Structures are given as C-alpha cells and as structure tokens.
C-alpha cells in the first residue's frame, strides 16, 4: 500500500517468534521434569465425588476429606471420579489434575516439609463445589 520499508516490522516479528520459541522450550523442559514419576513412588488412589474426596493408600487404609502423608517420600496420585468432573488441587504443592469418570489421571509429588495444606476442587461440579475441600497433613516419617 505505502512505499515505506518494512524492516522494523520484520525485526519485531522475529523478536516475537524468538521469545515464543524460548517460552516453548522452557515450558517443555519444565513439563518434562515434573511429569517424570520417580520409581518407588507410593500410590494413593484419589476418588472425587459430589462433594468430597476419598483417599486410599497402598496398604488399604482409607481416608475421607483428609490425607496423611510423610515428608521425604514420593507419592503418585491416581485420580478418578465417581460422578461428574472434579479437579484435584493442592495449591501449595502446585498439584492439579482433573478427576474424570471413566479415566484415571496421575500426578505425583514429594512433600518436603511438615505442615497442613488445603485440598480443594478446582473444576465446577455443582451445588457445593465451593466447599469440596479437604486437608493434606504432611507428617514426620514414621520409621
């Protein structure tokens, strides 16, 4: 249309593309790291249903609404749902994975400090979605 040169725009687009490549590479690397489940992680089965969480440890003990884990161990959550979609979330440990009926989704973490953390549902699941909460207790290792 107009007779001016376009090199500033080309440089600008180049910078944007370079930035996006950098973002993609960094994100890819970080995702690869957090998705790699360490061997020997203890499995905890997480069941979401309207409107509470149930946890089943490897040794068969079940907990409702609260989850006790030991610090320094790795845990792998196997998450599924009995009714509608939920999303299992421990925000302090940046854990988030949808609980979807008919599927088992996994996510892992290794608690580092003793303490209490909120567990919540982050996917809309109906009437009491806002109060579908629980507590994570990280305790000293028993052995």
């Amino acid at each position: 249309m107009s007779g001016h040169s376009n090199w500033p725009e080309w440089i600008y687009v180049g910078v944007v593309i370079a930035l996006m490549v950098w973002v993609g590479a960094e994100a890819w690397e970080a995702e690869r790291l957090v998705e790699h489940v360490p061997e020997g992680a203890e499995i905890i089965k997480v069941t979401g249903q309207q409107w509470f969480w149930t946890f089943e440890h490897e040794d068969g003990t079940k907990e409702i609404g609260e989850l006790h884990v030991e610090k320094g161990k790795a845990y792998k959550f196997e998450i599924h749902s009995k009714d509608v979609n939920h999303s299992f979330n421990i925000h302090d440990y940046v854990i988030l994975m949808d609980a979807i009926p008919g599927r088992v989704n996994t996510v892992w973490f290794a608690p580092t400090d003793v303490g209490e953390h909120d567990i919540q549902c982050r996917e809309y699941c109906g009437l009491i979605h806002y109060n579908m909460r629980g507590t994570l207790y990280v305790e000293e290792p028993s052995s």
Partner: protein
Amino acid sequence: MKKLVVLFLVLAVIVVIPAVQSAFAAGAEPGEYLDRRVVIWNLFFKMMTIAFVVGAVVSGTMIWQCWRFRESHPKAKPTAYEGTDW
C-alpha cells in the same frame, strides 16, 4: 551487524547452557526427589520477568507516543495526509 550476531550468540549461550545443565542435573541422585514447586514457580517467575520487561517497553512506548503525538503537544505538526481525502 557482526556485533549484533555476537551479542545474540552470547545471549543464546547464556540462556541455553543453564537450561541444558538443569535438564541433566535434575533428579539425578537417588532418594532425592525433584520439587515440582521449584520447577514450576521458577518457570513462572522467569516468564513474568520477560513479560514485564516486554510490557514495560510496549506500554512505555505507547504512553510516550500518546504524550508526544497528541495534537496539543507544542511540537505537533500536521501529518502529510491532512487536508487530503486519504
């Protein structure tokens, strides 16, 4: 131009080497688990650093040009197209 190439090469090395190092170093020792909080929040803060730098440049440019090219600015002069039916 050559200086620019060198500059970008240096920048690339500065960015790439730590990334490669962390990729190979992480989770290498047995019994030591990767802390997902560290990985994810590190990524987040890195991206926010870049985002805010770029944002400062872009919004700074916009604020400056809104100030400089407003019609009430003392140095404002008509554009080449004024008075024509462009």
